[in-house]
């Protein structure tokens, strides 16, 4: 049972409509931010609406812990006829993660945006950011396959514009955003075609209803083709190994806030939807499901974990290193899911949360340096540990979690992944985890070593410590990485309940 059992965070009248308020709050906020008079007011709107959304998500978590699954019929049309929001343990875990990251990013944007985006663009930037938050929240809460596409595109269109906004710092952000748009749209269209196949075969769009009807249709070629389309489409969105080409450029070029939020949520939301289809909608015992999980997903994820870690080692720019590292870590998460056991999926969800916290903290720290210093290459960061100790130590904590140093959340995540792999008798996965972790240690170690122990280049510009408004969210995330590494009750119970909900076992 989760610690949310006895949690009544909001009045019952609000909680009853919490599923839709979580999504609607940032959506309304986006309109308000676009119309607001100045940068300051749009920032206030951004913080307030994401905070409200997080509050509702927490209230929702209490409700889900007590009720199990909440089926919220939008517009009063009962499911499976109308569009339904289906909130179960895994959906609410994702909603908590995304709204919390949304709030952290919003607070952080107050100072960090100033150096990266022109002041007169701030209102529109915040509007795009809130659209993104809203889209990802809708994506994880919806129970309707086509509705998921609409939310996917709301968030993606926002993201393309946000990535392109990084052109002031680095004009390579523009072609990167364009490539992201091409890959993202091709992926989304493949997903729509897949949903069309499933709709043609089952006559329903409600995911739960689809799952029931697919039990007798598991070996229908139209259904299998639909599944293949969906996997390819969501794989592009999730930066699954051979479809990850858009990610390094987008993360490296985007304004820091966008890298923070994307690294923490974008690929995770797509992975969530992929897993919802794999486990919830498709009958897992079919040969086809096994072929997908063990024959396609696991080898590709393992390849990502190794190949992209090596690419991260050879990357010259620090942001690019972290971006390649993200693809490798997505491989770790997918390896956990591909086991399809309670332990494996739970470890995957746990590591997903861990990675969101540490990668967001790492990007935030880079943004904190960027306020005073135009640093991109690894050598630019030499000796920065003495000039901006607070940000650098926070970066080191996040990096330690990334590398899996004990007493951090990353360590616990990797440990439970290895345990799950051993339990499922997949010894080769343990080898992949070990090699991947060692490679992570190499590039993370290089960055931290340069920051603390290299003497700064004489005559190079000096960095200054970032203001409190930037340090506060950075340290909250870095602190949580350590806190959950010591006492993992909260994320572990959420991950266990989420895995049980995904696999359809009794919670």
């Amino acid at each position, binding site marked *: 049972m989760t610690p949310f059992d006895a949690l009544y965070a909001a009045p019952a009248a609000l909680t009853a409509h919490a599923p839709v308020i979580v999504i609607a709050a940032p959506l309304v906020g986006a309109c308000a931010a676009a119309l607001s008079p100045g940068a300051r007011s749009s920032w206030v709107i951004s913080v307030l609406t994401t905070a409200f959304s997080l509050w509702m998500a927490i209230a929702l978590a209490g409700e889900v812990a007590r009720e199990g699954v909440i089926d919220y019929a939008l517009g009063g049309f009962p499911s499976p006829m109308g569009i339904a929001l289906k909130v179960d343990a895994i959906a609410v875990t994702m909603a908590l993660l995304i709204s919390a990251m949304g709030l952290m990013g919003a607070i952080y944007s107050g100072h960090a945006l100033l150096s990266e985006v022109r002041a007169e663009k701030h209102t529109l930037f915040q509007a795009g950011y809130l659209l993104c938050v809203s889209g990802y929240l809708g994506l994880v809460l919806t129970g309707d396959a*086509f509705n998921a*596409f*609409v939310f996917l*595109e709301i968030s*993606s*269109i926002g993201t*393309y*514009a946000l990535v*392109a906004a990084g*052109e002031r710092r*680095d*004009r*390579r952000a*523009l*072609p990167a*955003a*364009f490539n992201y*748009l*091409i890959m993202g*749209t*091709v992926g*989304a*269209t493949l997903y*729509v*075609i897949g949903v*069309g196949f499933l*709709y*043609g075969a089952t006559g329903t*769009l409600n995911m739960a209803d689809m799952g029931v009807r697919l039990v007798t249709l598991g070996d229908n070629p139209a259904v299998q083709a639909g599944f293949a389309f969906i996997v390819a489409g969501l794989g592009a969105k999730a930066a699954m190994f051979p479809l990850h080409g858009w990610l390094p450029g987008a993360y490296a070029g985007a304004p820091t806030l966008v890298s923070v939020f994307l690294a923490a949520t974008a690929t995770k939301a797509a992975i969530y939807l992929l897993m919802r289809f794999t486990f919830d909608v498709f009958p897992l015992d079919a040969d086809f499901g096994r072929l997908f999980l063990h024959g396609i997903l696991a080898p590709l994820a393992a390849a990502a974990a190794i190949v992209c870690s090596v690419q991260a080692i050879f990357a*010259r*720019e620090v942001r690019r290193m972290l971006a390649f590292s993200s693809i490798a870590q997505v491989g770790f998460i997918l390896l956990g899911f591909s086991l399809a056991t309670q332990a494996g999926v739970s470890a995957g969800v746990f590591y997903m949360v861990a990675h969101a916290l540490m990668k967001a903290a790492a990007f935030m720290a880079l943004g904190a340096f960027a306020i005073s210093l135009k640093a*991109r*290459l690894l*050598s*630019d960061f030499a000796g920065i540990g003495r000039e901006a100790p607070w940000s650098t130590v926070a970066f080191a904590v996040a990096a330690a979690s990334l590398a899996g140093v004990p007493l951090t959340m990353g360590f616990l995540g990797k440990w439970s992944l290895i345990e799950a792999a051993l339990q499922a008798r997949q010894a080769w996965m343990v080898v992949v985890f070990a090699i991947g972790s060692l490679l992570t240690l190499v590039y993370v170690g290089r960055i931290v070593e340069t920051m603390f122990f290299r003497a700064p*280049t004489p005559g190079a510009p000096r960095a200054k410590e970032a203001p409190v408004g930037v340090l506060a969210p950075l340290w909250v995330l870095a602190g949580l990485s350590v806190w959950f590494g010591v006492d993992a009750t909260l994320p572990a119970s959420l991950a266990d309940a989420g895995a049980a909900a995904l696999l359809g076992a009794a919670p």
Partner: protein
Amino acid sequence: MSEFLTHFNYIAVVIIMMTGLFIVFSSGNLIKRMIGLALFQSSAALFYISLAKVTGGTAPITLEAASEAGRALAAEQVPGYVAQHGIDGVVYSNPLPHVLILTAIVVGVATLAVGLAIAVRVREAYGTVEADEINAVSRIDAAGLQAEHAP
């Protein structure tokens, strides 16, 4: 041959889809790539509309049971159906895929607009919309970064 005729729409879907995808990934010009993307998306639209077709189905508007025009229309659309099932047995085409694809088309237009807007900004920043030239300039950017920061 009959296979070809009954599945004509789906064959067209595949041809349009592959043409669009080929343009997206083979062309170096950003504008051409957007055109390919639009073509690719329209194949999904045709696919959904083809799914919705029901043989002998009429427009999904409820026919007034008593109305003479409705009765006549139903008899014309599905010969023998009215006699067999009465006026309520009219066969309608499935309206849902139409509604879905209307949404998808709107999403597609929005994506196209954002994509073209980014292409305009690319042209302002690089002076070209050819991917090869952009990549070359980007490589110079990266090399300049390297030289500028060399110890």
